[in-house]
């Protein structure tokens, strides 16, 4: 006798849409590309933090942070399925494409959220776990449910959610929040608006159709371009702070200044070239560069600290 009947009894069979999702579809719910940046920045925070953490606990901390970030991505896709369906960039996601039912995404995200916070708290410490819980809450409730559809400042404030991982990584090692981890937070926080607005300039039609009040839709491309330059002016000097404050080396100082200058130059180009395909290209160039910019800054911080640690160990 089969333990489970192959015929599924559901009360309203005609409405049943689930059951056809693959494991890959569920993995896609976790927004793996965002998750990889989260893992990377959290790892940098952990490596830079004073003291040390047992490698097993460090691995578990990274895993919990990654799963927590992925869970918030799944909850975001559950809530945003209606607008994701309208935008070309997001229409193929598992929920709007019909491969996963909205309720399934909600359950998946909720279970993983609770599990990731619990594991981080029990295995590492509760300060890091509380920060992870707050990050998930901030991304899902404050950003996705509160800000995204209401204000053009959505990604400015919501960007905080993406900026927390290095702070969580730092707290996993030290059990505290300190000025250094706040600086790492601030770099990602001020990087987010020019990064997303560069994309929004190109995809503003998409956002307008979906009724998402991104800055180019509400205030127009000119204001957006000015804001991109203003945030870049804040970001470039801020990114040198780890070197100026003495918790990053000369290599980081030189690279952050050089890349900051390129970032600023690309932002000014976006501001000045406002017409035709060249304007679109300038915005896309800034968007792509901004990803490499953040990745390089954190990579240099990571490598510098690993080299110093190896030098001390030798």
């Amino acid at each position, binding site marked *: 006798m089969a333990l489970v*009947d*192959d*015929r*599924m*009894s*559901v*009360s*309203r*069979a*005609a409405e*049943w849409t689930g*059951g*056809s*999702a*693959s*494991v890959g579809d*569920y993995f896609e719910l976790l927004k793996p590309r965002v998750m990889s940046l989260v893992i990377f920045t959290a790892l940098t925070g952990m490596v830079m933090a004073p003291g040390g953490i*047992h490698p*097993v*606990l460090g691995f*578990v901390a990274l*895993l919990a942070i990654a799963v927590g970030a992925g869970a918030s991505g799944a909850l975001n896709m559950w809530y945003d399925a209606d607008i994701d369906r309208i935008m070309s960039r997001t229409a193929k996601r598992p929920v709007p494409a019909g491969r996963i039912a909205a309720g399934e995404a909600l359950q998946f995200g909720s279970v993983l959220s609770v*599990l990731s916070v619990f*594991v981080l708290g*029990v*295995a590492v410490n509760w300060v890091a776990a509380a920060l992870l819980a707050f990050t998930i809450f901030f991304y899902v409730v404050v950003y996705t449910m509160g800000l995204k559809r209401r204000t053009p400042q959505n990604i400015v404030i919501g960007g905080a959610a993406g900026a927390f991982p290095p702070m969580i990584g730092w707290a996993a090692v030290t059990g505290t929040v300190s000025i250094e981890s706040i600086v790492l937070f601030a770099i990602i926080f001020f990087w987010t608006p020019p990064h997303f607005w560069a994309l929004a300039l190109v995809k503003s039609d998409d956002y307008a159709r979906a009724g998402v009040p991104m800055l180019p839709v509400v205030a127009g491309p000119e204001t957006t371009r000015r804001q991109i330059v203003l945030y870049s002016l804040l970001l470039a000097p801020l990114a040198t702070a780890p070197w100026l404050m003495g918790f990053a080396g000369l290599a980081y100082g030189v690279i952050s200044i050089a890349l900051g200058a390129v970032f600023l130059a690309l932002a000014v180009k976006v501001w000045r070239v406002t017409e035709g395909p060249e304007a679109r290209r300038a915005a896309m160039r800034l968007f792509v560069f901004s990803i490499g910019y953040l990745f390089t800054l954190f990579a240099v911080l990571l490598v510098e600290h690993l080299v110093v640690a190896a030098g001390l160990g030798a």
Partner: protein
Amino acid sequence: MADEDGIELTPEQKRRRRARNIAIAAMLVALVGIFYLVTLVRLGGNIASRTM
């Protein structure tokens, strides 16, 4: 009536359900392994540094 008969899963749906079940099982085994290792690390450290 169709609703009372339930839904007959297609072979592809059955294959995917099996893959999902295996993935969940793997996650649970991994979670057990993680808790085992974390217990060893946290408890082991405390035993090593206990006062006699």
